[in-house]
Structures are given as C-alpha cells and as structure tokens.
C-alpha cells in the first residue's frame, strides 16, 4: 500500500467518515472503502469515541420478512432503486442518499428500525438474487419478498397488516405526519 495515491486515500477517508456517521459497521466499511481494517478501526474510534462493535452482521433474510421491518425495508429499497435508476448516483452513493431519504421517515432521536448496515445487506441480498420485489395487488406498490415467491395474489404488509399488528410499534417507528404548510418546530440538536 506504499504507493497509494494520497488524493484517493483522502477520498476514501471522507467516504468512510460519512459511512460511519450513518452507522456503518466495520465489515461494511471494509467492503466499501479500500482502507485497511486497522485504519478503519482508528477512524471509527476517533469519530464515535468507542470501539466498533464486534461480532457477526445480522445476516438473515427472515428479518426482512417480518411485518414492520418489511415496510421499512421496502420503503428504503424503493428509494434506493429510484436513485440507481434515475440519477447519476450509483452504488454506495445511492445507498447513502437513499438512507438519508429513508431517515426522513423516522422520528428524530429514535433509533431507525432499519439500520444503515442492514440497508446495505438488503441491497446485497437483492444483488445476490435472494430477494425480489413483489407488486401488491391492492396498492400497486412494490415490497420486499423472498425470491421466486409467487406474486399472483400478493398483498402488501400495509394493505393487509397481520391481525395482531401492533399499532403502537408502527407509530413509534415512523415519523408522524405534520400538517402540510406548517413548519416543524425546531428540534434541539441531536448528538
């Protein structure tokens, strides 16, 4: 790595800082930047003040199939797909842009149900052909589903919530509508 371009490295560090700010785990940083693990750990500590969490990533398709996570994941992935398709942003840039747009739907100060690293894994699952988007027969929206699942009578998690869907959890996980035309009150700055 001795002859690495300084400019390139600066760009990668900037990218890593942005990714860490959004909540990226170490594995994601390693995959998306060309920086060494050691440097990334140092960078992480410097920004977050703590060591990066150890352990495996939440690597399961099942999580995306449960009711509320499915809605969050579908919202994020639709935005991501739009950015990939219609704008010059691609790859990790589209991922960051889409995640920021997704965060607008999460109450500020709340931990987003779909973490940034999970969003990244979601995109990788799609790239790997493990997931597909199924179209809801009622609202015509596209929702995350297992690959090769029959789509004929698919109805989404919003149009047909499970009988014991917890409204309270749904309320907490999404920002509540503000009346159009009214500016939100200034919120105290978040840590």
């Amino acid at each position, binding site marked *: 790595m001795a002859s690495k371009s300084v400019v390139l490295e600066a760009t990668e560090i900037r990218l890593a800082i942005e990714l860490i700010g959004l909540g990226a785990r170490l594995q994601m940083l390693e995959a998306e930047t060309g920086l060494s693990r050691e440097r990334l750990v140092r960078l992480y500590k410097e920004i977050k003040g703590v060591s990066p969490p150890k352990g495996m990533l939440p690597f399961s398709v099942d999580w995306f199939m449960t009711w509320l996570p499915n809605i969050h994941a579908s919202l994020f992935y639709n935005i991501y797909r739009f950015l990939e398709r219609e704008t010059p942003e691609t790859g990790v840039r589209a991922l960051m842009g889409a995640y920021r*747009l997704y965060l607008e*739907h999460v109450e500020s100060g709340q931990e987003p149900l779909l973490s940034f690293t999970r969003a990244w894994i979601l995109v990788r699952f799609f790239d790997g052909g493990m997931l597909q988007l199924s179209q809801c027969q009622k609202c015509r929206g596209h929702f995350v589903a297992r690959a090769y699942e029959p789509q004929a009578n698919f109805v989404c998690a919003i149009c047909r919530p499970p009988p014991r869907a917890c409204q309270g959890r749904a309320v907490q996980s999404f920002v509540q509508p503000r009346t159009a035309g009214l500016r939100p009150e200034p919120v105290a700055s978040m840590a």
Partner: protein
Amino acid sequence: MNGGENLLAEVREVNLSYLLLAQRMLNEDYATAVFRLGFSKEVADIVRRLTLSQTVKLASSTSLLCRFRFDEGALLTALSQDALGGVLQQAHTTLLLASQPVEQIG
C-alpha cells in the same frame, strides 16, 4: 375584481414558484431533488438550465405546469384508506411514488 383573472394569476404564480423551487432543489442536491420531484434526468437537466427569462416565460402559462403524480385510481384509493389509523400513510406515499414512472419527455 374579476375572479377568473385572479385564478389565472394564481396559476402563474404557482408555476413560477414550482419552477424556482425545482431549480433550487436541483442545485442543492441533484439526486435527492430528482427523487422528490419525480423527474427524469432529461427533464431535471432542462429545468435546471433554464435562464431566468425562460423560467418566467414558461411560468406565464395559464395551465399548471406541475402534474398530479398519482394517476392511477387504485393508488389513490390505497392511500386514502387508513390502514392502522393512518400511521403508515406517509411511508406508503413515498414508497408508491418511488416506484411510479418518472416525468418523461417524449
């Protein structure tokens, strides 16, 4: 005061506000703006490059320049029905708009 004239003036005003807002959004954060506006790349680039006089000229139309983005009955029905007391509505709206075709030329 002529009510009809007033309405037309308001249409022009909305047109101008719309174009100016779109331009500001596109200059600030291009990709996010394209998403919020539902533009295609071509439309976005043309709107962004309009000169002030072109913008004003375009805005002086007495027809609205911005279009209603839900052009399917099913979509609108889904959104206006309250699932779970409407707590998911905002997310649902964004999700549906994201999978809609964008404003195209030609």
